[in-house]
C-alpha cells in the first residue's frame, strides 16, 4: 500500500506496552490515527489509552478485522520477528521505528515484504505523518505539538534525518506552506522506502505539487532520485538540501563499495547529479520554504489551510 494513510487506515501498534509504545500510542490516538489494537506477547487483555492489547497480530486481526498498517516499537533484536509476524497477518504497511536493527534482518524483512506485496518505512525512523489525518510513528512527539507544527497542504517532505523531517515541515508551516505527507525514510544504510521510492509515490499523489528533500552523504538514494527525474518518472518541483558537506571524506576502506558505487555517495556527487537534472539544491535548510514558494509561483494552492 502507499504511504498516504488517512484517518480510516486501520493501524496496530506492536510493542504498545513498552516505554516508547505507550507514549506514542497516545500521540497517534490523540492525533486521530485509527489505532484499532496493540500487540505485546504476554500482555493480552490489558489496554493502553483504551486501545485493547493482544498477544499476537493474528489475534488482533481475528478480533478486530484486517490490519492495514503496523507501527513497531520493539527492541532491535526482536524487530525481524515482529515484522514477519505483521506481514504474515496481512499488514501491507510497516513503520519500523527502532534503530540498530541488524542489516541482514532488514534484508530479510525486505524480501518478505516484497513477496507479500507490502511496503515498509524505516528502520530507524520517526515514521510518517499526514497533516490533519494520521501519524504513524512518533513525528511531533505529542499530538498538540504535531497539530501546531504541521498543516495540510501541497508539499511532500522526505528526509533521512528524523529531527530535520520535523524542522523542515515546521519551517514550511511557518512560511504558510502546508504539507501533503511527511516521511522520515530512516537513517540506516538500507531502508524499506528510500527517497526515490517516496518520490515515485509523491509523483502519483494528486495532493502533492512539490517536494522538499533532506539528503545526507552516504548511500545512493539522492543519485537515484536524479536518475528517476532523468528517466521522466518524477516530474514535480523538488527542493533539496544535502547534509554532510563539512564531514571529512575519509579514506574509503572497501574496494567493493567503490567498485559498485564509484563516486556515488559523496556530497559533491549528490549535489552535482541533482543539479544536473534541475533540482533546486539549497545551501541552508532555512532557504527551503523560499525555494518552494518560487517553484510553486502561480499555483494558488500553496498556502496551508489552518
Amino acid at each position, binding site marked *: 500500500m502507499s504511504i498516504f494513510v488517512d484517518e480510516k487506515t486501520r493501524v496496530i501498534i506492536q510493542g504498545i506496552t513498552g516505554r516508547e509504545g505507550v507514549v506514542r500510542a497516545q500521540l497517534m490516538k490523540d492525533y486521530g490515527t485509527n489505532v484499532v489494537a496493540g500487540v505485546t506477547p504476554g500482555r493480552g487483555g490489558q489496554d493502553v489509552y483504551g486501545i485493547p492489547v493482544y498477544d499476537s497480530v493474528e489475534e488482533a486481526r481475528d478480533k478486530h478485522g484486517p490490519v492495514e498498517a503496523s507501527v513497531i516499537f520493539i527492541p532491535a533484536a526482536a524487530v525481524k520477528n515482529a515484522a514477519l509476524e505483521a506481514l504474515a497477518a496481512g499488514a501491507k504497511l510497516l513503520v519500523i521505528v527502532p534503530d540498530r*536493527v541488524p542489516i541482514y534482518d532488514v534484508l530479510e524483512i525486505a524480501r518478505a515484504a516484497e513477496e507479500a506485496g507490502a511496503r515498509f518505512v524505516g528502520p530507524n525512523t520517526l515514521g510518517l505523518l499526514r497533516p490533519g489525518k494520521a501519524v504513524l510513528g512518533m513525528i511531533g512527539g505529542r499530538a498538540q505539538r504535531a497539530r501546531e507544527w504541521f498543516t495540510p497542504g501541497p508539499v511532500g517532505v522526505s528526509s533521512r534525518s528524523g529531527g530535520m523531517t520535523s524542522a523542515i515541515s515546521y519551517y514550511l508551516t511557518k512560511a504558510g506552506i502546508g504539507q501533503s505527507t511527511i516521511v522520515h525514510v530512516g537513517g540506516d544504510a538500507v531502508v524499506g522506502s528510500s527517497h526515490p521510492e517516496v518520490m515515485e509515490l509523491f509523483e502519483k499523489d494528486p495532493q502533492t505539487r512539490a517536494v522538499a528533500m533532506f539528503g*545526507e552523504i552516504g548511500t545512493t538514494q539522492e543519485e537515484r532520485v536524479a536518475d528517476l527525474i532523468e528517466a521522466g518518472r518524477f516530474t514535480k518541483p523538488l527542493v533539496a538540501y544535502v547534509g554532510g558537506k*563539512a564531514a571529512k571524506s575519509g579514506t574509503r576502506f572497501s574496494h*567493493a*563499495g567503490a*567498485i559498485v558505487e564509484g563516486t556515488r555517495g559523496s556530497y559533491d556527487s549528490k549535489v552535482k547529479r541533482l543539479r544536473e537534472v534541475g533540482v533546486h539544491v539549497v545551501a541552508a535548510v532555512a532557504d527551503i520554504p523560499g525555494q518552494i514558494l518560487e517553484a510553486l509561483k502561480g499555483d494558488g494552492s500553496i498556502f496551508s489551510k489552518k
Partner: protein
Amino acid sequence: MARLYEFQSKRLLREGGVRVPEGEIAATPAEARAAAERIGAPVVLKIQVWVTGRAGLGGIQFAATPAEAEDKAARMLGMKVRSYVVDRVLVERKLEITAEYFAGLVMDDARKCPLLVFSPTGGTGVEEIASRHPDKVFRFPVDIRTGLREFEARNLVRRAGLSGGVQIQLADVLTKLYEVARRNDARSAEVNPLVLAADGHVYAADCHLVVDDYAVYRHPELGIEIAREFDRPPTELERIAYKVEQKDYRGTFYFFQMADRVAEAGEGLFIGFHGAGGGGSMMSMDAVLNKGFKLANYCDTSGNPPASKVYRAAKVILSQPGIRGYFASGSGVASQEQYHSARGMVKAFAEERLEIPAVIRLGGNFEEEAVRILRAYLKDIPAKVEGYGRDDSPEFCAERMARLIAESGGAVHAVRPMSEPCIPAGAYAFETLTGRLGIDHSRCASCATKGCVEACGPKILKLEGGRPVLAIGTEEARKGKCTECLACEIFCRFHEQDAVTIVLPIPGLKEYREKAG
C-alpha cells in the same frame, strides 16, 4: 562499522573452508622469526592496520630467511601509519601467484539484498580497472532466503570468462565467502587479491570483513571492542563513553574525539559539542565550524534518551580539559521530550560547577519547559548558560557562543577530580536501571511541599508517613519503571532539603580524570 583485521578475517575464512596462506601473527621481531622458522619457506610480512595501500607505505615486505623476517619485523613494528602505531605483523608463507582475481560482497541499498561482485582482474588498483573497464566487473544479487548457491556462483565465474578447474574452485570460494559473511553479519567482505597459486590452488591472499555495528552483540567471539566506525584505535574516553552506551539501550549516545588532547592540539577555540540526531547535529556542526570554532569532540544523544544518559554524555564531554565553551544543538524541532536533556545537563553542570559558557539549543517538544529548567537551576553556577528553542537558528546560537566566550575573559575548562555524590548510610534507597537513588528521610521532616512525588515523571513515588517511598516494587523500579528522569533530585535540591541523591556511575571516568588532571 566494526572492522576486522586481516588476520581475524582470514581466520574466519579458514574456519569457513576457504584456503588462506599458512601464517601467524607476531608482536615482536623474535615472534616473527619463530613464525618464519615454523613456516620453513620465504615469507611475506604484513602490518595489521585498517588502511589501504599498505605496500606503498612499506607495510608489506618479503623475507627469504627467518633472520631477514626478524630484521624486517623490527623495522615494521612501531611504524607510524596515520594515527596507528603498528603493533602486529602477519607472517605468511609467500605465494607464487599465477593469477589475481577480486571477490567482494556489499549491501545493495537499491535492490535491498547482498550483492556479490567478482572480477577476473584483481590486485592493486582494482577500482581504477573497474572504472575503466566496467565490463570486467560481474555482479550477482543474492536472494537472502536461499543464500548464494553453488551454481549461481559458478555461472558468475563462467560469465567472467573462466573455465575448467579454476572455475569450480572460484565458485566454491564465492559460496563460502558469502556463508562466512552471512554467519558473521559482515556488511562488507572482500578478498583482494583472490589468487591462483603455482600449486594449482586458489587462496585468499588478503581479506577484510566489516561487521555490522548493529549485529556485533551477536558475536562476542569476535572480541570487537567498539562497534563503531573508526579509522584509528579508540581513545580511552571513547572507550568509557561506549561502555555507557552499551549498558543502556534507551536512546543513542555517540561520542568521539576530534582532538585527542585539546591542550596539545595547538591553537584554536575548542568547544565541547553535544548534538542531538544525525541531520541536526551535522547542520549545527556546520554552524559552529563556520564561526571559526574547532570541535574537541562530536557527540550525539538522540532517540529519546533518558536524562541519565544525557547527564553521562555531558560528564564525558566535560572530561576534556582546555575547551572554552559547551555547545548543544540538534535539529531544533525534536520530537523527544527536551526536558530530559535539560535535566541531564543541569545535574552535570551543577556537579561540575561549570565555569565555561554554554549555549544549549533544545528546540522541540516541551522546549519552553526545557529552557525554563536550564534557567532556573543553573543560575548559581559560575558559568553563563543560555537556552534556546526552535525559532533560534544554529547560526544565531553559534554567534551567542562566540559572544559568551569573548565575555568570559578567556575561561578555560579545567577537569576536576570526580566527586561522585554518595547516598548517606541509612537512607531509603533503591536500584534503578543504571544507578541508585537514595532519599535521606531524616531531612523530609522539614519539607513543606513533598514536591518530589509530584515532580516524579513516571509517578512511582508516594508518601508514607509523610516521607516519599516507592509506590511500586523495588524490582520494577530497577527494571526501568524508574526512568531516571532526575526530576525528584533536581526539585529537592533546588526547592527543598537536598535529600534526594541519584548516583549514576560512569565506570573508568574517575581514573581517567585523575590521569588527565
